[in-house]
């Protein structure tokens, strides 16, 4: 082997290129080149170069909305602080603030400030990505671009739906996209585009072994479809958490995936899943290996309900499982990122290029953060930035506007009507107690003198307590609760329309209020009497006006695996004082 041989080949390569210029290229080649340069031209303005406030550290990001929301890696932003500097290819440096973080998935959402007309990248469908697809990675590898003009690399998808084991405490890369596109330190957090220039992933990891922290032909991008699931929670300023099944799985004989040990406190257990059940599909995707299962589990946030099909003794069963959190809250609430081995952290010092230590930091202007930006950061335990949760709460609470006529009507409520199965009911929500009476069902009584909330009427999961929470929400709004927060969005019950989730807590009762995302309509809520128990699931099926007051006149109640009943409400008797007025629906 002759080391000197490298030079002649390079020369040959160069001469091939230069001779190509003088000779007319094939039209097809020129067209393909034109398409590429056009994709790059359109995509580049949305690519962000991220630095810490003092100009040190850094990485990449990509804008996804005109009002400045941009995605990056958690391991990039955690090194940059709550406020950072972001450069675009127009050469302008913008301030940005942290919004939400996903330490497990290595994703961060930031908001760039100062414009409402930022260029942004359209989101693609990462599930459509196949091995062999062409991709562009853009960003700021080795922090080369002092003018924030992104570096473009071009390559091929090497594998889709890849699973990468956790490095250190967090940072499990599930269902990610593997590319041979050159990804290097500093590319972290930057976009991976498909051939059409749509955002399909966030570049975050490279295979690093003995060759130093540079590209060795295997880079990994977090799929954009995974990030979509977490997006609204991130926008809500959360430190988001991933999910577990509440059970471990193992590979059985003949490549089956079996439940290994299941927690009895888990929803999966309550839905009937047991040890040694064979998992056939999960979230609509067939399961052929433990990796596949982890891949699917890893892309969903805690709290989502997903369909799971399992086989026991030859019989197939489908259940919807609500996923418990992967971590305890305190585990994720670290002040400064994960400990232990880190993925490639961009620091501008490629191990093989000591002569190229960019002095970008020194060139950044010393600038004080404007006061108007300082109020965009609210620190609170469990949140990356509670300010954005407040913003989202305000947005979602607009869904209560149709109920404004209920404000302050805190006296006695008497609800009367029939259930679909022919029972008649009268439910009283009084200041001192809650009661329910039926012709057929067992009656219910819940005192409000400080005793614990219980499952009354029996088998409803605490319907009386639930309706009491609803009354509080309508009459007093969010201020009635000890704690209120926005918790992102998910498909209702794992199969319905996407809903924004508002969580309220009062003594032991936790309610999840569901507002349909497309129109803000309150479509129902879950009310739990404690942790690790099934909730009373109230779904509003129809609304009407009772004497000018908006109220659901048909709702269903479900507890665990049982339908408790569907209620047709005929009258609401409301008395703010001693004088009660009976009202009937003005329309049916």
């Amino acid at each position, binding site marked *: 082997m002759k080391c000197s041989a*490298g030079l002649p080949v390079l020369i040959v390569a160069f001469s091939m*290129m230069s001779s190509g210029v003088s000779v007319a290229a094939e039209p097809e080649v020129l067209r393909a080149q034109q398409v590429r340069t056009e994709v790059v031209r359109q995509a580049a303005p949305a690519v962000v170069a991220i630095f810490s406030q003092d100009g040190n550290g850094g990485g990449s990001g990509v804008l996804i909305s005109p009002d400045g929301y941009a995605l990056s890696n958690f391991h990039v932003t955690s090194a940059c602080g709550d406020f950072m500097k972001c450069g675009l290819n127009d050469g302008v440096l913008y301030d940005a603030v942290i919004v939400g973080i996903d330490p497990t998935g290595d994703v961060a959402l930031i908001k760039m400030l100062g414009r409402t007309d930022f260029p942004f990248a359209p989101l693609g469908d990462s599930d459509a990505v196949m091995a062999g697809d062409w991709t562009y990675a853009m960003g700021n590898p080795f922090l080369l671009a002092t003018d924030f003009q992104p570096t473009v690399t*071009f390559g091929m998808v090497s594998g889709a739906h890849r699973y990468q084991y956790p490095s250190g405490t967090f940072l499990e890369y599930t269902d990610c996209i593997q590319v041979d596109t050159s990804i290097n330190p500093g590319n972290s957090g930057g976009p991976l585009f498909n051939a059409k220039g749509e955002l399909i992933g966030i570049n975050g990891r490279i295979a690093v072994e003995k060759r130093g922290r540079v590209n060795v032909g295997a880079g990994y991008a977090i799929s954009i479809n995974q990030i979509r699931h977490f997006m609204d929670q991130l926008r809500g300023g959360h430190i988001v958490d991933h999910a577990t099944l509440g059970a471990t799985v193992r590979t059985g004989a003949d490549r089956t995936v079996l439940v290994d040990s299941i927690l009895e406190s888990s929803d999966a257990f309550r839905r009937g899943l047991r040890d040694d059940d064979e998992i056939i599909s999960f979230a609509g995707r067939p399961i052929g290996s433990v990796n596949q299962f982890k891949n699917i589990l890893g892309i969903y946030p805690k709290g989502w309900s997903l369909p799971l099909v399992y086989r026991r003794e030859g019989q197939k069963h489908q259940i919807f499982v609500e996923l418990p959190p992967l971590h305890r809250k305190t585990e994720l609430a670290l002040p400064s990122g994960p400990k232990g081995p880190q993925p490639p952290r961009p620091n501008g010092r490629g191990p093989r290029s000591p002569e190229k230590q960019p002095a970008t930091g020194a060139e950044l202007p010393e600038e004080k953060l404007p006061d108007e930006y300082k109020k965009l950061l609210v620190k609170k335990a469990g949140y990356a930035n509670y300010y954005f949760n407040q913003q989202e709460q305000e947005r979602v609470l607009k869904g209560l506007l149709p109920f404004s006529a209920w404000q302050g009507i805190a006296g006695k409520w008497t609800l009367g009507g029939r259930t679909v199965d022919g029972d008649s009911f009268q439910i009283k929500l009084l200041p001192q107690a809650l009661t329910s009476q039926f012709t057929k069902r067992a009656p219910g009584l819940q005192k409000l003198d400080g005793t614990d909330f219980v499952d009354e009427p029996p088998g409803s999961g605490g319907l009386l307590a639930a309706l009491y929470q609803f009354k509080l929400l309508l009459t007093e709004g969010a201020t009635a609760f000890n704690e209120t927060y926005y918790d992102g969005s998910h498909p209702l019950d794992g199969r319905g329309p996407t809903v924004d989730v508002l969580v309220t807590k009062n003594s032991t009762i936790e309610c999840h209020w569901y507002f349909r995302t497309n129109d803000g309509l309150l479509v129902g809520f879950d009310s739990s009497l404690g942790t690790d128990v099934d909730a009373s699931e109230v779904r509003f099926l129809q609304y009407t006006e009772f004497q000018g007051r908006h109220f659901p006149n048909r709702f269903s109640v479900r507890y665990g695996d049982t339908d408790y009943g569907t209620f047709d409400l005929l009258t609401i008797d409301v008395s703010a004082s001693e004088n009660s007025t009976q009202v009937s629906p003005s329309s049916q």
Partner: protein
Amino acid sequence: MFSRKRPGLAIVFFAIAATANLCSAQSTSQTIATVAPKVVKIFGAGGSKNLYAYGSGFLVSPQGHIVTVWSHILDSDTVSVVLHDGRRFEGKVIGAEPPLDLAVLKIEAEGLPFFDMGMATSAGPGTRVLGFSNAFKVATGDEPVSVIHGVIAAKTTLAARRGAFDAPYAGPVYVIDAVTNNAGAAGGVLTTWDGRLIGMIGKELRNAQTNTWLNYVMPISELQETVGQIISGRFSSTKRDDDGNENSIRTRPRRYDAADFGIITIPDVVARTPAYIDRVLPGSLAEAAGLQPNDLILFVRDDLVQSCQMLKEELGRLESGDQLKLVVRRDDQLMTVTIAVPKKTVE
């Protein structure tokens, strides 16, 4: 040649790769869908630092014959072979040829997708290629192996000098501009853009002096005969002798080479490297005949020599006692020299 991991180099090759057309996305995915199932994941011995316990191989018969590299992974009693569909088999080593860094495994299966080694092709520098392997053990179970794209940068000979530059394999290789040779990638395949087999990806190879890594691929033509012999049970391994040279595994006799006359040509790195003399050994027949560095050898006897390779072949055909007539060009003049071919001990 070594591809240094420098941005400059990457850009050069990137430009070349990019000029290739992009319109074949559909057929590319078809190629990948056809090729990937013929590549298997192998799990065996190892697991300690820098001794990974996983590798790649490829099927060459529907009955489960698998070609891979000869490595420590095969040292364990059982080797696990995982097919594209997730099926796991116990693999048995049925033959190995260390000088070729080659081993053949067998699993008990039938009806498998496979490469017909007889249909393998060769390719020249500039050819766009795909590499398939289980690099970094990214794929497990029924997950398809990784695919990367690149260009053949050179076709050359890998010398395995002990000490200065020790390589696990000596012989002709393709050098690839992409990082094909990663942990676990050895035993994977290099194919053309339409999926025709070109070669087997070699091991990771680092030059300790320059800290550069070579991505080399062994041409199928070098392996084919031995693989065939192993499968048919007619094979007996050759061993390296004390000098680290292999004992005649080639079919064509090469009785003489340029060094026998004291001629060292320039490195043979492209398909038709002109046969320039790089050095003339002191006290050699060539020096006595008046040959000098930078002379270009044009004719051997009356045969036109267009490349180092052809020179090699011509010299290989010489017999003891022949008169070797060379026509060389020096500056603008042609010169003819004649050298008596010396006696050589027959091995």
